[in-house]
């Protein structure tokens, strides 16, 4: 059975199709959907191609960071000056996905909605505390990326919902790094990946934020604090202790549990060491953007309480 292809021209029509057809599936960049179709494992009755909907491919600056419409391509996130300026870690990580052809086609929304535990972009979105906008016939809601990956191949996207945008706060000052290790080919899916951001928790403490890919049934986030006077070894030790209980690899053709656990530790150690070394001794206390920034609020509150 071939699924019917719909090519609606406005958002309302998309949401009506998602609400009103038997077993709809959004067709974003289509790089994952086409493969599932070829493998004959897709049960959808209706494919809803969202490429013709105006506005979904907008990438714009916001007071607190940037906003990427769901159809912005991974390649644009990798190359656009706005992303380089506001969230260089994010640009770096998008640039490490698959190959340029897939990145030219795949969309930021389809990427996270795909929900695969090995995806690279979630590692950076987690440390940057991005927010996912979901739209449905019932309205709009927002889900923090840290609550988006709910289980193995499962996400917070509900029936009838469309990812419409990602809001990403400006990367806080500090140091950042990404490490991705593959076992079959340089360009293959990772067996372990880690995005790390080091920033000021307060005057004397640094926060190390870690996003892990491929090391558990979902992308995983954890943060740990270390004295600013600590060495890179101190930072690595603290990070490894924090990720240890969270690493829960799935054995497959790319390696067994022991192999992946080991590579996971290497990826975390490499990224933390690089990010720590990249962090200036005195992290300027003021955020880069003076405008109101509600994403950073919880962080500020935390700082005041101390």
């Amino acid at each position, binding site marked *: 059975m*071939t699924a*019917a*292809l719909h*090519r609606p021209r406005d958002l309302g029509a998309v949401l009506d199709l998602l609400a009103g057809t038997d077993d709809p599936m959004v067709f974003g960049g*289509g*790089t994952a959907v*086409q*493969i599932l*179709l*070829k493998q004959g494992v897709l049960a959808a009755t209706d494919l809803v*191609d969202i*490429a013709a909907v105006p506005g979904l491919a907008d990438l714009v600056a916001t007071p607190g960071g940037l906003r990427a419409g769901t159809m912005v391509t991974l*390649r644009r996130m990798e*190359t656009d000056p706005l992303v380089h300026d506001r969230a260089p870690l994010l640009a770096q990580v998008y*640039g490490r996905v*698959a*190959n*340029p*052809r*897939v990145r*030219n*086609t795949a969309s930021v929304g389809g990427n996270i909605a795909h929900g695969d535990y090995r995806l690279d972009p979630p590692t950076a979105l987690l440390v940057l505390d991005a927010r996912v906008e979901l739209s449905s016939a019932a309205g709009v809601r927002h889900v923090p990326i840290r609550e988006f990956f709910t289980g193995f191949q499962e996400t917070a996207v509900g029936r009838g919902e469309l990812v419409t945008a990602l809001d990403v706060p400006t990367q806080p000052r500090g140091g950042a790094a990404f490490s991705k290790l593959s076992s079959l080919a*340089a*360009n293959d899916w990772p067996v372990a990946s880690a995005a790390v951001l080091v920033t000021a928790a307060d005057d004397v403490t640094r926060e190390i934020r870690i996003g892990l890919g491929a090391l558990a049934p979902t992308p995983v986030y954890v943060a740990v604090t270390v004295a600013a006077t600590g060495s890179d070894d101190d930072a690595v030790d603290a990070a490894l202790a924090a990720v240890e209980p969270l690493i829960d690899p799935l054995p497959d053709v790319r390696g067994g549990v022991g192999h992946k656990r080991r590579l996971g530790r290497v990826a975390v150690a490499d990224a933390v060491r690089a990010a720590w070394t990249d962090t200036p001794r005195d992290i300027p206390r003021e955020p880069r953007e003076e405008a109101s920034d509600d994403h950073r609020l919880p962080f500020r509150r935390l700082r005041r309480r101390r």
Partner: protein
Amino acid sequence: MSTEITLLVNGERRAVPVDDDDLLLDVLRGLGHTSVREGCGVGACGACTVLADGHSVSSCLARAVRYDGAALTTADGLPADDDVVEEFVAARAMQCGYCIPGFVLMTHELLAENPDAGEAEIDAHLEGNICRCGTYLEIRTACVNAARRRREAAHTEKESA
């Protein structure tokens, strides 16, 4: 459902009837552009690469209806004196040649974006193309030489302007 789409293939306007699930790969081959080849069929090898409005795409994962109105470049449509092709030939960068159209188009995309690309940028951009004959070193040499030639041409143009 069958619809008629318009493709601008290598500068030539073609009206083509396509079904919703037709792949760009099959449509282009049907039009005689057999330099577009199927390898892996899942986006991982680059044998099926085409440029759509200048951007590389794996045509094995691309639905043709999505490309209505797009300007497509296939390797067989490049001019006889194409700089990248000439450097691939000069470096003897092919054995069977199956993968080469993809590598040539990826090189075109890279050099259009970044004529200053060096080995690191070349490796990063071409890493997702697979050559079963293993002529990678010659391919890299061809790209390095094509980049140099592009830079020299730009320089000469500036001098004479």
